């Protein structure tokens, strides 16, 4: 019960912090002081108080988009175990629901983007759905490998099964899987090298361009939902990458929170040292990630 409360609290409160850490890391690389760690929280509270600009072409779908997307992501947050703690909801096949809830969110984000009738938002939506077509199989290859290793078909037992001893046995496979998952994490959350969240040119953006016309509380919802999605896929990643358990429940929560912050720093480093890929190179990298995770499956079958 206590663990479930911790889970909810972390899921609700921590995601924007990751964005702050990523920003700070990038600022450090650039030799700037950067915005404070808590800047995303200030942004959110400011957006909640700001007025709304609605385009005349839009319908109710435009306003439903952020709500459905955030609802799907929030429900997905109940399915992922954080640290070494079981998720509040766990059943056979919850990993399929997890993947499909993100798809539901994507459906409504892109539909809301198309509702504005803007060519830029149409471009963003087309890119988003095309790239995620290629990212989806990678996730499923990774999940199959985990099912084979753990024998479970639910995220909680499957991820809790990853322990240091498993790393000794199947390290090569887990490493390949992590590479694939990291690529998916960056692609699904529209980070560099796939997309630049800070670019000023609408023509080259993916996620940011889809939400150009959202404003006020609606945009706040989208921003928070995006942070939450990064957090959940990040949790999936750190559960495999940091398999240690301290034996104490509270200590485990601490380890998990630190691991998530470290992941944010890693993303910040990647964003600082890499340039954005050309759009036509993106599918190639995604397919390479898919093949890496397929290799990880082959290694455990061998």
């Amino acid at each position, binding site marked *: 019960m206590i663990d479930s409360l911790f889970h909810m609290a972390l899921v609700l409160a921590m995601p924007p912090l990751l964005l702050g850490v990523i920003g700070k890391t990038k600022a450090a690389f650039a030799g700037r002081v950067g915005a404070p760690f808590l800047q995303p929280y200030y942004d959110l509270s400011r957006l909640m*108080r*700001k*007025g*709304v*600009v*609605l*385009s*005349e*072409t*839009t*319908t109710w*779908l435009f*306003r*439903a988009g952020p*709500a*459905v997307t*955030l*609802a*799907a992501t929030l*429900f997905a947050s109940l399915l992922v175990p954080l640290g070494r703690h079981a998720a509040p*909801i766990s*059943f*056979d*096949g919850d*990993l*399929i*629901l997890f*993947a*499909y*809830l993100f*798809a*539901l969110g994507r*459906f409504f984000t892109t*539909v809301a983007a*198309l*509702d504005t*009738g*803007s*060519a830029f938002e149409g471009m963003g*939506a*087309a*890119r988003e*759905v*095309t790239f*995620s*077509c*290629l990212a*989806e*199989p990678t996730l499923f*290859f990774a*999940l*199959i*490998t985990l099912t*084979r290793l753990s024998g479970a*078909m639910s995220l909680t037992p499957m991820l809790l099964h990853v322990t240091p001893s498993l790393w000794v046995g199947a390290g090569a496979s887990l490493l390949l899987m992590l590479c694939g998952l990291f690529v998916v994490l960056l692609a699904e959350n529209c980070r560099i090298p796939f997309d630049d969240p800070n670019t000023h040119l609408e023509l080259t953006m993916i996620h940011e361009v889809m939400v*150009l*016309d959202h404003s006020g*509380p609606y945009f706040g919802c989208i921003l928070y939902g995006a942070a939450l999605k990064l957090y959940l896929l990040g949790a999936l990643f750190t559960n495999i990458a940091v398999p240690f358990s301290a034996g104490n429940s509270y200590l485990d929560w601490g380890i998990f929170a630190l691991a998530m912050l470290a992941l944010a720093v890693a993303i910040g480093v990647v964003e600082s040292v890499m340039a954005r890929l050309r759009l036509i190179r993106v599918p190639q990298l995604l397919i390479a990630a898919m093949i890496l995770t*397929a290799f990880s499956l082959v290694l455990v*079958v061998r």
Partner: protein
Amino acid sequence: MLFEILRDPAALVIAALVVAALSGVPGLLLRRAPLGQRLAACLAVAASLLALPALTRMLLAGERARYLIDWSLPFGVCEIALDPLSLFFLLPIFLVFPAGAVYACGYWPAARHRASEPSVTFFYGLLCAAMGLVVVARNGALFLVAWEVMALAGYFLLVTEHEHDEVRSAGTVYLIASHVGAAALILLFSQLRIVSGGFLFPATGSLHLAAASSTLIFLAALTGFGSKAGLMPLHIWLPSAHANAPSHVSALLSGVMLKMGIYGLLRVLSFFPERPLWWGALLAAAGLASALMGIGIASAQKDIKRLLAYSSIENLGIIAAGIGVALVGESTGNPRLAYLGLAGALFHVLNHSLFKPLLFFGAGSVMHATGSRELDRMGGLASRMPWSALFSLAGAVAICGLPPFNGFASEFLLYLGFFGEARAAEPYVALGAPLLALVGGVALLSFVKLLGSAFLGAPRSSQAGAAHESPPSMLAPMALLAGLCLVGGLFPRLFLALAAPVFPTLAPLSLRFTELPFRPPWFTLAGCGVLALAAALFWYLRRRSAALPVVSGPTWGCGYLRPTPRMQYTASSFGAMFGSLAAPLIRTRIKKSALTGVAPEAGRLSYQPEETLLYRVILPAFSVAGIGFSFLRRLQQGQVQFYILYIFATLLLLMLWVR
């Protein structure tokens, strides 16, 4: 006597089929136009109100019924029977048929289509009854007769608008493909006659045959029924047929008639007590390949109904893959896989017969309002036709397999089957999961594109700008189907209960699996949870923004001052990026007029997606075959007396041969 009939559910079902067959007849005789159509719609609803409760009752109670018909034709005893497999496939018939008949009153009103309406209504009822007869027939000859009536009724419905060249050529291709399939079926039933001694269908699991003979039967069934179900590469007739028929007919063709292929395949498979492993593997591979290629080609379409037709190929591929996986489970002694594969496939049969007609009805409403099938010329319909947009949205979410709708539940079962196999010694079957995920991703792309370019944004043509909402007679069937899609997603157990009685016929092994490998309450919880959360957030945002200043203005054009609706992303441009990845499957041919001179005249540019397989392989092969067949044309005199002579000569030769 009448009271006795009303007490017997099987008799009710047969009576409903007769009512359906006759539903269009009054319209042929009546002078006053709308009366016949309305009468037909009432009869259709009455037939399904008679049949559906009886069907459900018989399915759930596990009842069966047999009728022997005394006929004087030389094909042995004729039998009609209702067993769970037949009953299950009668369900989509009696769901879609009344919905389409009611929809037709608004979509194909007799007042506007005076000449074609009576025949459309008549053949619509006949098609439904013929499909019902296909499902209940237990004699090879009767089956073929019903199959042929079904194919021909479908043809006459399809060529309703025969004044257009495109429709006529689609009809011809359909007719040829349908008869090539029927030829395979004649081979199938003749072989069955040879091995079992009669045209009567062998009982379930009673056919013990040598490998060569059973392989012949399986391959003939796969060709004949696979071409009806639109499995690649036997699908070439399907897209143009479903695109050119009136929408309520497309709904019946796509939602129900394709399932007749699946029914036939399942029926033939049920004859065999054990099937070799390769049958299941072949079916699963063909199904997954069909699903992937079908949706890949759908993603490039810009014709709303062609997109839906290709997506039918995808869905039927998923169903075939489920059946194949179940067969693999049966032959490797894996009850879990057998259960999940078959349950997923049958569940998807029901689901597809709900959301595909719904989407075809939505496409019909769009065509009714704009007079065009071109997605690139639509846009902004959601504000003019809010209800059609809402129901189409439900259909699109359902067909993408997203929670909380029914498509998710059936694909969930298949995924669970694939994931379970990851633990097997040789986890080949598990590779289905990433493939299905890829299919799901492309389906999402295709339906976001369909929804976005038809209903959202600004109108791209004056017709789209002047669109109007459809009448209630068209919206009511859509609302019903959308509601059923949601029910299936939230309470999958209701649909599975209808599929469960079929298992003993096809996968006796799965019965050993007494406990469900998944917990249905989670679907209810997850579906209701997401819906409630979304509604709460929507309400909160609404209230929150009501307290804040709301400004309305044009869409942000990134600084451009004079945007026009033509600058929007079209359906073609939306699919172009994925199209470049799917280039081996489909290419877009661009036709443009050359510009000459210093001041060139207005030019035209058009683009058409073309299926590589069709244009590079199948059509060249057909034209070679056409040269080969050209000598046969000399036999075609077009004079009846010559044809009678041919028949006489053939009979004479056959008699000499038999002597």
